């Protein structure tokens, strides 16, 4: 019998980034007992790294903005594979979610008349991103954290959930361990909300931290939930490329929003060379118009640097591949040039982009007010994830909810910058609300002891494996190399088939990795346990990428360059564990847009 401590909750929330905290706050508004489990210390989750802003049609800067425009922008950005109902709810509710943060102490940058300032971002027609310099995520997580700690939520910091518990069809809790002593904890719960973020650690070059190992995706998959559109992994166009140790660290899109331009080794603004059909009418056709747009000229159209992330990333790869890259294999991102346009440019840049200024100064010896940065694509976000009901965020497993990056539906084939922070708030709140409602309407289900023992044995296996078993870090690194190489920006039947074979052989090795030392704060052991999640999401991504024989949004197939597969229609890919425990994939057609939705999209051009 495994030894463990048990905690009973009405609602258990796994993950304490923006979505998890917002869900916890919402669920705690009644008399329910709420538990919140997070892998790191409170306030350190990935949300803290978000820079540019939170998208909400507040219309503070341009009164032409409205939920309808935001909805249309989101649908277009997602190549019409998004769940339209989610896009509607998101566009309608994000303004209230942002205003509410201000009531909890957040302080966004201001307009002249004292309301919340908004900035331009790729794919958004009007200035829409509420922000605080380039540290919006920190402001958001701190506001949620400082409000949340007074709501009676029980927080388990530095705890990791390794498996969900089910009783019959229903979710009944979770099995976790605490980092400090490595002891087991059993959380019994009437409803569980997954808010665990993304999967970036499956790749070598990523802006994501150690936490992003696809835990929620994997927990949900093993519990019988569906994962959709897992092929859509966003490669953010601008990550740092030099020095090697910082490769992948994010350079905010805000740099381009403030007037930054992309150039190649020939000094050419290459983004003007390829403007997609869907965006021709909305894009500037000369540099001056683009500059005027970034400075708030309402008649100007956006510069091509602010096209969607999938497109900008592909253009950068093209420049590098065709020999026009920067010395370290990226392209140039230049904000210093704005000194030709405005007085006091260095001061302006330091005020608008303080953390970028420090990041380059301290990590790369580059003064961005004087010289261009070198940037290239970095794995940043996964659009795909756990399939949920648009209104309630419940999965097909009763009592299991998901919100934020680990859930899917809003972003389709490509996410617009700024739509993630708003996603966390809107659907975090909804998940908390409906999980609480589920807990009120459904009683506790007893846990199954035998299941707990089986999980405990599995969790301790790395210590029992032979000492000559592989080093868990080594297996993780091999997986990251293979995913980068075979399931990256450019994919093909050949690369994806090979990836699936590699994943299979790494899975066998992962089963035998050896953990040294004891259970106390043992990073090697934790890495060994994370491998299962990483392998699960990697397999789902490769399998879905193989299934989608087209190049759309963030998914590019060298062997299928067309946007649509002839006769296949618009579809989502769906991954689910079949009865034999094998990962199965199928397609489901995207339902036709209702007339009302169609009309909005047409109206908004």
């Amino acid at each position, binding site marked *: 019998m495994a030894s463990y401590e048990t905690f009973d909750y009405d609602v258990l929330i796994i993950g304490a980034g923006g979505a998890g905290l917002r869900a916890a706050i919402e669920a705690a508004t009644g008399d329910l007992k709420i538990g919140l489990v997070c892998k790191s210390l409170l306030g350190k989750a990935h949300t803290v790294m978000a820079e540019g802003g939170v998208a909400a049609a507040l219309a503070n800067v341009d009164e032409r903005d409205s939920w309808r425009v935001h909805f249309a922008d989101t649908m277009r950005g997602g190549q019409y594979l998004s769940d339209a109902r989610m896009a509607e709810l998101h566009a309608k509710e994000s303004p209230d979610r942002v205003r509410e943060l201000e009531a909890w*102490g957040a302080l966004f940058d201001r307009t002249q008349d004292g309301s919340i300032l908004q900035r331009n971002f790729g794919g958004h027609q009007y200035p829409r991103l509420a922000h605080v310099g380039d540290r919006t995520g920190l402001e958001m997580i701190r506001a949620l954290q400082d409000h949340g700690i007074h709501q009676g939520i029980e927080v388990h910091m530095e705890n990791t959930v390794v498996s969900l518990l089910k009783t019959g069809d229903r979710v009944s809790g979770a099995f976790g361990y605490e980092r400090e002593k490595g002891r087991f904890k059993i959380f019994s719960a009437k409803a569980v909300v997954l808010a665990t973020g993304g999967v970036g650690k499956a790749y070598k070059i990523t802006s994501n931290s150690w936490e992003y190992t696809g835990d929620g995706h994997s927990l949900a998959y093993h519990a019988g939930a569906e994962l959709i559109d897992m092929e859509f992994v966003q490669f953010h166009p601008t990550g740092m490329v030099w020095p*090697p140790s910082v490769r992948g660290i994010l350079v905010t899109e805000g740099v381009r929003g403030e007037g930054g331009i992309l150039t190649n080794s020939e000094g050419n603004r290459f983004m003007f060379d390829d403007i997609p059909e869907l965006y021709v009418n909305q894009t500037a056709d000369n540099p001056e118009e683009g500059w005027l747009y970034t400075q708030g000229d309402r008649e100007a159209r956006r510069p091509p640097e602010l096209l969607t992330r999938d497109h900008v990333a592909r253009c950068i790869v093209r420049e590098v591949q065709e020999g026009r890259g920067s010395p370290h294999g990226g392209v140039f991102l230049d904000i210093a040039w704005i000194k030709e346009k405005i007085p006091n440019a260095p001061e302006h840049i330091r005020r608008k982009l303080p953390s970028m200024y420090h990041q380059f100064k301290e*990590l790369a010896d580059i003064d961005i007010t004087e010289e261009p940065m070198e940037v290239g694509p970095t794995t940043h976000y996964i659009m795909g994830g756990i399939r949920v009901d648009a209104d309630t965020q419940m999965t097909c497993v009763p009592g299991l909810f998901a919100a934020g990056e680990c859930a899917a539906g809003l972003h389709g084939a490509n996410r617009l910058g700024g739509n993630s922070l708003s996603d966390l708030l809107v659907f975090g709140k909804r998940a908390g609300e409906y999980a609480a409602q589920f807990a009120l309407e459904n009683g506790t289900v007893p846990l199954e002891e035998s299941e707990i023992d089986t999980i405990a044995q599995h969790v301790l296996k790395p210590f029992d494996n032979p000492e000559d078993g592989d080093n868990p870090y080594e297996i993780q690194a091999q997986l990251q190399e293979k995913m980068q190489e075979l399931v990256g920006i450019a994919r093909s039947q050949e690369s994806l088939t090979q990836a699936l074979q590699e994943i299979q052989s790494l899975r066998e090795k992962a089963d035998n990795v050896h953990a040294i030392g004891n259970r106390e704060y043992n990073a090697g052991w934790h890495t060994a346990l994370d491998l299962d999640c990483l392998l699960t999401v990697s397999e789902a991504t490769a399998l879905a990428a193989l299934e989608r024989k087209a190049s759309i949004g963030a998914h590019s197939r060298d062997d299928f360059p067309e946007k649509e597969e002839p006769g296949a229609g618009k579809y989502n890919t769906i991954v689910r564990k079949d009865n034999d425990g094998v990962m199965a994939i199928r397609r489901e057609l995207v339902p036709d847009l209702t007339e009302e939705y169609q009309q909005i999209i047409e109206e908004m051009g």
Partner: protein
Amino acid sequence: MEKATFRIWRGDASEAQFVDYETEVSEGMVVLDAVHRIQAEQANDLAVRWNCKAGKCGSCSAEVNGNPKLMCMTRLNDLPLDQPVTVEPMRAFPIIKDLVTDVSWNFKVKEKMKPFTPRPPDAEDGTWRMEQEDIDHVQEFRKCIECFLCQDVCHVLREHDLHDEFIGPRFFVYAASLEMHPIDTENRLEELKNEDGIGYCNITKCCTKVCPEHITITDNAIIPLKERVVDQFYDPIKKLFRVFGG
């Protein structure tokens, strides 16, 4: 490739010592990269906290060659690599294991402080109007990434161990961010004077010097709070009476 030696604190509360690790170093590496390389290749069970690796989350606080630093923002080419680089945990908090300390006290302190309490909204849509210049100072305080290096270096906590009577620079910055928030209505001065022990701070500015976010903790947060406490509780005439009246 060049090699360097890292002298890393290993062990827990019962037993610990420095252990030397030699590892390869390359251009642009920071201390956290070296620690990670050692962890992956030589010491899988080495405990270290980190998240963003970009100076935004405040997880990887430690003492590098005796200086409180974020490991992710400390570049190796700023350190003399001809001698071992010492890396040890923050000393103002109890050790858990290796480079990881128990910082839970900080979270408890914050929970006890009076939360943000806004005045009624200015506009019908539930929003407030605030001038940018009125929030500049508060935004400076809100840059804090809660790395707790200021707490680590503060002698009131580090040498005198007054954790029960003194909340430390981080929470004076937090208090200042609330007290100077244009729409907050709460008053925290009595707590600052009594339970929070602001009087213990003798403005040596050690906290300001180590802040990776360059927040001017002493000048912009602590001194103005001290002045507010004096204004509210130490009316000069009454004080004269107290001194001469015995």
